[in-house]
């Protein structure tokens, strides 16, 4: 009983299956586009400048500046005050709204607006040092009870350009990330910071600040709900398909093949990614959820990349004698993935891992940190390059071998030839699907950048493009994995030996060649190829 379902499925059944999967795919796109709002939203908060009469008490955990503070207008000249008297305050979120735990996470970005003065000029690269602290409050707390969350002294590099150096024109300055919270467990957050000055040159280059905006970026509640619902739907389906697949494999009187193990790994990592763990954040404070999501996603894509390499390798049709279908055969090919993923993991731990301890931390501000981060990213890039060279080489080899074997086909009997051609066609079909999926991912990635970058003043467009692309791509890889698990599951059909023709013209069946050396091969295409090479 050789072969997978893909090879034994009739054309009609295959097209029905493909149609169902396509409908699921389109549904995923439409759910994102029509139901969900855009994935993330932002609020620009104009920070209020507060007067601090006791600057030495700034670091006191119980002392907070809220919207009730005595505010200062930066345009006015205040004699006798110095930098430590100025505290910038931003309450998040704006107005009388409050964060919901569905908002998931929060990124804070600072935008410093500086003006040219009549008499002053500033340099273009400014080292900004900030004393920051973050507090939180819940709805049931009294109005002025803010609880300490974290604090730090942080450095940021602001790059400014000034096309027009006349009075009152502003510099155009880059924004800087200030903090990132992996969980949004409380209702309100409060940011206090000041720009200290000392004799050692701290903040000496800072120009005349007219405004400081705090931009906060959060996930949208609607998107999180749609996203989690998708996950909740996919997760049990995936588990069922995996159980069915494994059951199929175990019905056979052989040990599972490498590709079957790998399909289980891909399914397993996708199951980890699909598991709607985010529901826990509604009840518990889990700051590492952001890091965990990164890791889950990384592990899934690593498994998928490994699967492709081994899939191509198994179909390369070079079987020199004994069949080597262990992971060890592919250590060289997989090392690229491993190195790439490890360097990305370390980079992620350096940034988001440290955020668990200090949400204000950024690896990019110190020269060593920048070099370290860059080297990890470059390393990951190199490994990705090596991986793609390997993958392309192996796919090319597989196709070359298949076309060589194809030339042997005319010497075979008609029914067998038709069937082999069908197998090659379906193999090609699946390769095509993989390429389409990868291409769609890349294109949607680029499209979402464009969609976000544009001004959205057109009110007639009801489709939320970036959400549609997000749920669409996520759904696509799920459906892709479902398809692989279903189509590459071993077929249960018992084949009559040496009978060439099936019951009807559609379902052509074929038998394992009697000289076949390996009983545990997954695909009859592989069987065919190795047989041909023996011939």
């Amino acid at each position, binding site marked *: 009983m050789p072969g997978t379902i893909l090879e034994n499925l009739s054309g009609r059944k295959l097209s029905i299956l493909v149609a169902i999967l396509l409908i699921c795919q389109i549904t995923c796109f439409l759910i994102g586009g029509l139901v969900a709002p855009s994935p993330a939203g932002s609020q620009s908060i104009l920070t209020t400048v507060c007067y601090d009469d006791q600057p030495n008490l700034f670091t006191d955990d119980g002392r907070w500046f809220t919207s009730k503070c005595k505010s200062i207008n930066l345009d006015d000249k205040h004699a006798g005050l110095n930098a430590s008297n100025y505290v910038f305050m931003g309450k998040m979120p704006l107005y009388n709204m409050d964060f919901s735990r569905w908002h998931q996470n929060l990124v804070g970005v600072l935008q410093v607006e500086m003006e040219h003065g009549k008499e002053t000029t500033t340099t273009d690269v400014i080292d900004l040092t900030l004393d920051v602290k973050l507090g939180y409050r819940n709805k049931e707390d009294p109005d002025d009870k803010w609880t300490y969350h974290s604090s730090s002294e942080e450095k940021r590099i602001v790059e400014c350009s000034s096309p027009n150096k006349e009075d009152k024109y502003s510099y155009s300055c880059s924004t800087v990330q200030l903090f990132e919270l992996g969980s949004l467990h409380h209702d309100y957050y409060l940011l206090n910071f000041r720009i200290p000055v000392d004799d050692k040159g701290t903040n000496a280059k800072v120009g005349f600040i007219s405004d400081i905006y705090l931009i906060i970026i959060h996930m949208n509640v609607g998107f999180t709900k749609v996203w989690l619902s998708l996950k909740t739907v996919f997760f049990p389906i995936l588990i069922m398909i995996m159980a069915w697949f494994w059951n199929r494999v175990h019905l056979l009187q052989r040990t599972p093949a490498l590709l079957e193990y790998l399909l289980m790994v891909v399914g397993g990592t996708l199951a980890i990614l699909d598991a709607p763990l985010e529901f826990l954040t509604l009840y518990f404070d889990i700051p590492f959820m952001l890091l965990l999501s990164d890791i889950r996603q990384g592990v899934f894509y690593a498994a998928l990349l490994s699967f492709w390499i081994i899939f191509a390798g198994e179909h390369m049709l070079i079987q020199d004698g004994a069949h080597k279908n262990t992971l060890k055969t592919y250590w060289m090919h997989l090392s690229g993935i491993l190195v790439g993923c490890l360097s990305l993991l370390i980079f992620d731990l350096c940034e988001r891992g440290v955020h668990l301890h200090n949400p204000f931390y950024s690896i990019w501000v110190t020269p060593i940190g920048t070099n370290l981060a860059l080297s990890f990213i470059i390393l990951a890039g190199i490994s990705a390059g090596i991986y793609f060279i390997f993958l392309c080489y192996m796919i090319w080899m597989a196709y070359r071998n298949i076309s060589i074997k194809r030339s042997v086909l005319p010497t075979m009997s008609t029914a067998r030839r038709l069937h082999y051609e069908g197998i090659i066609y379906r193999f090609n079909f699946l390769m095509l699907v993989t390429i389409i999926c990868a291409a769609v991912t890349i294109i949607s990635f680029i499209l979402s950048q464009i969609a*976000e970058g544009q001004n959205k003043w057109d009110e007639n467009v009801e489709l939320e493009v970036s959400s549609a692309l997000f749920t669409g791509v996520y759904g696509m890889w799920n459906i892709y994995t479902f398809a692989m698990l279903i189509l590459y599951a071993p077929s249960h059909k018992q084949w009559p030996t040496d009978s060439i023709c099936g019951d009807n013209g559609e379902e052509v069946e074929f038998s394992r060649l009697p000289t076949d050396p390996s009983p545990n091969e997954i695909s009859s295409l592989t069987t065919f190829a190795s047989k041909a090479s023996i011939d």
Partner: protein
Amino acid sequence: MGLALGELLQMSEAPHCHKLPGLSAGQGRICQLYQDHMLAVASGAHQALLECRHQFQHRRWNCSVLDELNVFGPVTSIPSRETAFTHALAAAGVTYAVSRACRDGHLSSCGCSRMGRPKTLKKDWIWGGCGDNLEYGYKFTQGFIDVRERERKFKKGSRRQGQSLMNLHNNEAGRRAVIKTSRVTCKCHGVSGSCSLITCWQQLSNFREIGDYIRDKYDGATEVRVTKHGRLKLRNSKFRLPTANDLVYLEESPNYCLRNVSIGSLGTQGRTCNRTSIDLDGCNLLCCGRGYNTLKSTIKERCQCKFKWCCEVECKTCIKSVELHTCK
């Protein structure tokens, strides 16, 4: 606009609407509904006034306003280029100020909050796509400023109706100038900080840049006339059709050389001019050929300054001798 600004700006709390002179009936109603917006409206109008003076400091018409109380005074009686400019600038100032006021959280009905939002704003699903305060400022200003032109009905094709249409067009141009000059800034915050997830927001530009933009539009304003059917049409069909971002006017401006309060001209007598310039600020053009007086003097000036955050400017003192020319 016609708001009493000096009075308004001194108040720290939202002013009472009936105390504000110059509001039309419709504006008065909006004022009642959105009392907390009025401080922003007033400061926007004030900023527009300052900007107008800056933009026209070297021209014959230097945004002459007869007194502080009536910001945009009699100049509005003739539908000239200058009227177009002041309307656009006032609309821009209010849009700008309301958008900005939204961002410090003092207004009750901005952006995402449900209370009293204009109905035309996009729906959100807990804060999706509603964080844009620029859109709010635009919509609010549209309601507040344009209501003045819409509440009186004139005979179709009449001069007053044409002026009303012109004002509406220029108000829109002013509001759009704020949007046109705003910058989009984006931040990547996806997996490992990658750009798989990217969020963008509108960043208001400095009001000086908005003023420059509208001044450019003033220089390229199009002359139109009103048709019998009550629509605006190009006076000279060879010109390009103005877009919603461009300014339009109905009548040529006077030369503003002599004082004539009824047309909003203060005259250029006593204005300082630039002797060497051949541009509009040159003594020849600015003084309308009447000649100029020259006064030599030495002045002390602060120079080579260094700014120290937050509140210090360290300067040296330079002594310069200057010639001051004033129009006869």
